[in-house]
């Protein structure tokens, strides 16, 4: 990709020719406040927060303006401060501000912008209406939709249409009544939403939040255990439990995308119904046993069978290493090639 040179706040930077001013700035660790921009999505330039001053051109929306050789960009000036404040004040006008208990606290684009702009309380409340009190849509078992925190950036809507091609949600109504809505306005769970959670991942504020917002203590790379696509995941661990799953953006197969099972279907791992002890049938009942007893018993019984009286099922849900050992056991120890698995089912 051809590079161009431009200056942002006096700093000369180089950027790929197909980038916008906002992208070039962010890649060079220069923050320009923004809300409706998302790297995965088309640029719609609706929030007006990413305004910059381009020499010879004046106020410019940076998320949509392509970089050009020799551009001179200012990200801050008295004028910019002024023009940025109004849209942000409007966004705060009916935003529910229970920040400390909000699952998005400390990871919220609106907080970040307010902090960057240095808004004072009276400035913040200048255009403030009575706080919105729309009902929260908690119909989905995995995430909640709180319209009182929506900033109308449209990222969820564009995610659902551009990336997922599902189109479960869109803007409804006009002006102050604008809402992100399902078709007909019913609860999300009754819409055509597939619960993939891709909108939840991208929501810049607390309008779309997973039901459980506890953060993991560490994350471990893995591969989703459901279908054969093999999406890369990051298992979130807290203590001895898996508490979250994120799509692995580095993985070449899914590039971070996940479906409902991949993202939210991990609860079986720590299910109380898991088998935790070997079981042996005694007097018709399966009763708990120690490993030595169970293994010795199984080994003894299998050993008493002739090679052509025994069969082995390997597992499409186990690892390559597990399966290699299982078929080796079948062939080299039990002496039979009657080893198969559920590939046909």
């Amino acid at each position, binding site marked *: 990709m051809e590079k161009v040179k431009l200056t942002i706040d006096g700093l000369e930077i180089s950027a790929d020719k197909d980038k916008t001013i906002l992208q070039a700035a962010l890649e060079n660790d220069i923050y320009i406040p923004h809300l409706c921009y998302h790297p995965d999505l088309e640029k719609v330039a609706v929030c007006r927060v990413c305004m910059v001053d381009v020499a010879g051109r004046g106020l410019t929306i940076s998320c949509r303006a392509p970089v050009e050789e020799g551009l001179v960009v200012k990200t801050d000036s008295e004028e910019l401060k002024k023009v940025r404040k109004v849209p942000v004040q409007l966004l705060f006008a009916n935003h529910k501000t229970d920040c400390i208990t909000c699952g998005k606290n400390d990871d919220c684009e609106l907080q970040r912008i307010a902090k960057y702009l240095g808004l004072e309380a009276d400035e913040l409340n200048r255009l403030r209406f009575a706080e919105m009190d729309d009902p929260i849509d908690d119909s989905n078992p995995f995430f909640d939709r709180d319209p009182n925190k929506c900033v109308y950036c449209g990222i969820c809507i564009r995610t659902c249409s551009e990336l*997922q091609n599902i189109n479960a949600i869109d803007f409804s109504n006009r002006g102050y009544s604008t809402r992100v809505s399902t078709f007909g306005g019913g609860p999300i769970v009754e819409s055509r939403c597939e619960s993939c959670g891709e909108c939840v991942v991208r929501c810049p504020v607390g309008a779309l939040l997973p039901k459980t917002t506890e953060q993991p203590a560490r994350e471990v*790379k893995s591969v989703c255990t*459901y279908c054969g696509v093999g999406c890369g995941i990051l298992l979130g*661990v807290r203590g001895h439990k898996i508490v979250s799953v994120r799509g692995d953006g580095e993985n070449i197969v899914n590039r971070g995308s996940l479906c409902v099972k991949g993202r939210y279907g991990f*609860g079986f791992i720590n299910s109380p119904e898991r088998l935790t002890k070997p079981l042996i*049938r005694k007097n018709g009942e399966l009763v708990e046993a120690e490993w030595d007893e169970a293994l010795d018993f*199984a080994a003894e019984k299998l050993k008493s069978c002739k090679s052509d009286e025994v069969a082995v099922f390997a597992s*499409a849900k186990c690892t390559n290493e597990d399966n290699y050992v299982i078929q080796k056991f079948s062939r080299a120890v039990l002496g039979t090639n009657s*080893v198969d698995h559920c*590939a046909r089912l």
Partner: protein
Amino acid sequence: MTNSVADIGEASCILAIGTNTTQAHPVLALNVKRAAAKGAKLIVANPKEIVLCEHADIFLQHKPGTDVALLMGMMKVIVDENLQNDSFINERTENFEEFKESLKKFTLDYVEEITGVPGENAAEAARMYAAAGTASILYAMGITQHTHGTDNVLAIANLAMLTGNIGKPGTGVNPLRGQNNVQGACDMGGLPNVYPGYQRVDNPDAKAKFEKAWGVKLDDKIGLTHTVVFDKALEGEIKALYMVGENPVLSEADAGHTRKAMEKMDFIVVQDIFLTESAKFADVVLPGASFAEKDGTVTNTERRVQRTYKAIEPVGDAKPDWWITSQLAKRMGGKGFDYNSPEDIFEELSSLTPSYGGISYERIKEQGLQWPCPDSGHPGTPILHSEKFPSASGKGKFVPLEYRESDELPDDEYPLILTTDRSLFHYHTSTMTRKVEGLNRLNSEELLNINPADAEKYGISDGDMVQAVSRRGEVNVKAKVTDICPPGVVSMTFHFAESPTNELTNAAIDPVAKIPETKVCAIKVQKVG
């Protein structure tokens, strides 16, 4: 898959046949939908009007079990209109003339009569696929789970070769594998006819190689497949079963037969993470570690070997499967099972599996590699068959085909075709997904999808409990009246133990692949009460 998941975006035409992609392979379906949104042509061929049809340019709603007729009809159009890729046929394939001869009978009228698809639609799809330049075929169990599943796959391979749509980006014959490591389980020789790397057990060289590596004498007799094991158990020949991570009582066709076979067996060892419906038949149950509790590798549908890492300790006294099997082996006097880690095992298996020969834990630490990857400098193979095919001549062989009917067709007593399907919210027999409360809420029970015309005929309203009956069994299930299914065809998933769909299905198998015909059986439905 001959090609890669990401490669789907390179196709200018995608034919998705016998795959309910958005439900069964949702993230791969994103690539299909995005390609269609960007202008790639999408042809969906499916007995049901699945969600993917919303994105399709052409929807071919053929009757279940008529894929060969549909594909042969499309290929006849391509040949008749001279749309085939002659240079590819001449340079890369053989047996074309014999194959061409077998197309003769598949006139559009004949195809329409068998498939129910208007001839002109099939012809238009054929032209669209042939004209695309790069066209990819995706398929899944809708193609394979038939008594003529092998013919279906051969028809797909014929179509790809006829138009030269194989061996280059944006093309390919792409089966979408169902389970997270079904590809790997096959690669590792979890099959009765092959050692790891598809080295045949009846090939003396392969046998000698594994005898040397494992230090034992091996049997050159091909073993029994999954479906046949249960038949032999009922006949008293198979007396014991060691079963890892599988639930045949719900997943096997004609499940009643499977249950009887499991009851009859003398000794069953089950190794699993839950006490499944099948584990309840066991004499010994060994608790395995889940995927999050052990290190290892899995191989996805595009042949990519990827690393998984242990995130937590196994719950309770559960142990990794490789450890459990090795313990059994050692207690039975087996040698060569003293593994200290999965990496030990991987080193052994990659030294014996040529297509995995160049893969190591170090190399796939960050990103997986696609086999064949024969040596440590090899970058892996995103696209198969780019220069030659893995046959003796190196050429792809056209196979002449006949249309064969499904084993059990509807009649006066059992007038409806039942075809099985998958839900987005559950997985296979739901051993795992039914333990997730939210997934249970999103899809809480089995539904029998039935066309409004059929529902009216049998006096069934939406939400009624009905009894579905086949020659093999009966199942109570809630009816969903929907025109997703055409008249004469009903569908059910097999995710719910409360409505065990496979009590109904037909265990007749494909003679080559030994796959049961779960996509077509005859049933009747009647309202309960």
